[in-house]
């Protein structure tokens, strides 16, 4: 390699030039590879997001293999679940909370539906049950780094506890403090008919975030959320915005839009733009702001 090294630039076989060429090729190769990886990553990520959004909610029917009334389900527009809470009827007994905790085997401090004691503008106290608001623009979803929080096409915001990394950014972002972390090992629960899924996260998973799921698996079975059936005051309606139906599960089944309109229902912290799926019917002088 004595002569070649010196004549490198003019050498036809380019032995002396080869390091330069190799370096250039390598650089070019690296940038092409990097760009390719980047583009691949991008498409994967966006693709992944679409998949999550388009994925049908894992239903209890699907899990048990029972035939699903696909014809009617397909003919119908998808459900858009919603909840209406009539604060005029709520007496703050918190039986919704107990029913929920019993249904999901939750510890005492995990109040997926929590009854707050509020003060109205006249200084009177009233009670406000707060489930997850199932926001249409969920702030918790946007900040979730691993895509563990997702929103089903039926409008329920769920957490995949087999994915959640436990960073709690969602707890910071939720303006309704509706999210709860499993700080300790959850207590053992009896055998469940289905394995834990986002739609039925029982038992809870240590080190992940849980929250009200509107009893999503119930809804597909034609059952009502535990808090709705557990309310002795018939203060909580569960409804379907698409079919325009709401029921308190105990005798009153009405047209949802009419219920909202006739009673001037409002959504909590509307100014945040979260577009909650939970509506409140307020009593006299109540305004839900503090």
């Amino acid at each position, binding site marked *: 390699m004595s002569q070649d090294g010196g004549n490198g630039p003019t050498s036809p076989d380019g032995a002396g030039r080869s390091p330069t060429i190799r370096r250039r090729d390598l650089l070019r190769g690296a940038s092409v590879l990097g760009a390719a990886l980047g583009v691949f990553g991008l498409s994967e*990520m966006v693709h992944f997001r679409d998949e999550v959004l388009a994925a049908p909610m894992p239903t209890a029917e699907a899990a048990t293999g029972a035939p699903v009334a696909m014809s009617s389900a397909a003919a119908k527009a998808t459900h858009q679940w919603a909840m209406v809470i009539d604060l005029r009827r709520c007496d703050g007994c918190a039986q919704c909370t107990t029913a929920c905790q019993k249904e999901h085997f939750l510890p005492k401090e995990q109040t997926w539906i929590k009854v707050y004691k509020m003060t109205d503008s006249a200084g009177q106290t009233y009670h406000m049950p707060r489930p997850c608001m199932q926001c249409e623009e969920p702030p918790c979803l946007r*900040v979730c780094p691993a895509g563990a929080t997702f929103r089903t096409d039926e409008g329920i915001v769920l957490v995949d506890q087999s994915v959640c*990394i*436990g960073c709690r*950014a969602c707890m910071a972002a939720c*303006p309704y403090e509706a999210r709860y972390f*499993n*700080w300790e090992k959850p207590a053992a629960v009896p055998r469940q008919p289905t394995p834990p899924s986002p739609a039925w996260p029982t038992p809870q998973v240590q080190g992940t975030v849980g929250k009200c799921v509107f009893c999503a698996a119930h809804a597909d079975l034609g059952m009502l959320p535990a808090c709705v059936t557990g309310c002795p005051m018939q203060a909580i309606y569960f409804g379907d915005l698409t079919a325009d139906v709401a029921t308190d599960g105990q005798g009153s089944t009405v047209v949802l839009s009419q219920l909202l309109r006739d009673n001037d229902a409002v959504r909590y912290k509307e100014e945040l733009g979260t577009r909650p799926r939970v509506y409140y019917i307020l009593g006299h002088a109540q305004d839900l702001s503090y």
Partner: protein
Amino acid sequence: MRKRTSRTELDETALRPVTSSGRGFWLVMLPLGLLVLAALFAWGWQIWQGLGSAGYNDQAFWSIYESNLVTFIGVAYGGAVVSAILRLTRTAWRAPITRLAEATALFSLLVGMMFALVHLGRPERIWELVTRPRLSSPIFWDFVAVTTYLVATVIFLYLPLIPDLAALAGRLPAGSRLVAWYRRLSLDWRALPAQRRLLDGAMAVMAVAIIPMAVSVHSVLAWAFALSGRPGWDSSIFAPYFVVAALYSGVALVILVVAGFRQGYRLHAYIGEDHLIHLAYLMVVLDATYLYFTFADLLGEGFSMNNSVVPVMGQLLTGQYAPSFWIWAVGGGLLPLLLVALPWTRRTWGIVTAAALVVAGMWLKRIVIVLPAAAQPMIAGGWGSFHFTWVSITITVGAAAAIPLLMMGFFRMFPVLSVTEIEELAEEPVVRPRAHAAFGLPQEGDEE
């Protein structure tokens, strides 16, 4: 200036921690090592028992680990940016401290990144940020920014090491296993003008690139809080606020590290009190900027008396977090300013005291940034509270001990002073890096 020393003396000083480990070395390493082991045990305990064992609850969902994360990554930032800025401005007094500053950056960054794991409920799932990230999440971008910054910091530490390793390989004691490593890592360095041009060019690119990278790291870290829309965090000033905080505490840590290694490794011939004073000036400028930012943040949020933010302000300035806040304001803000401003305290002891106050005070400041906004009631009811437990305290103390431990371990293998740079700046500058003219920066020889 200090007395001129010969190249041999310089090489020997830089390699002293590598060639001879006195009893002092192990006397320092042993307790540090024990603290780190205790922290690892506490972390294992926490993973087993759940994050509740660290004192968290649903209202105080972010607290000490998040403050530690910001603090340690913040001080990391100082090291690299100090080194980069001093390089870009061709500051002559930088040479003996750049290696220390860059190593501080690397190791406090590593420790800070550990807190990103420690704070997670399921740290073993961190890879999901690679396999299934959500692009809108500030936490994902934290991950991207910090890992990018880590790679950049390693490169930034490595490049100026290349000539040193080549120069010092021959000076290592015969039979040292390090010789082979030095030779391999020095990449056939022969101080050829062409090699120097190549390396200087790469250094200039890195010095320029690392500044926006560091800014991005702390901005995204701030946005992890600010983008949550939570009263107290929901502030448009947060990103620059965090950047200045990071620089401020970072320079303070560099002062502590420089003073500590100067004392411990007897570098007095190369690092004088004037180095500390230069750094202290840098620190007070950042101190004043940070105080100004704090005022601007609190005034901007609090003056309107907005219902959502008033409770947080009240707790911070007059409520349960007020003692911590005002201790910081006086001890971590005003006092360091005075200690450096007054001529009779502008001595090594005064500057080191000021820097220690800043590092500790800025940790406290991060606690009162993180905790009140997290613990506030969002609907109605009482404030949450965080309980410091042995788990979180052991992990925090162990992490603080890990930085000197890692640095001493590193300097057990690599020269503590950038010998080539010191010599180069002491003599006539030979090569002018291309980037300097391009960026319109002062040329070598402009100063002094």
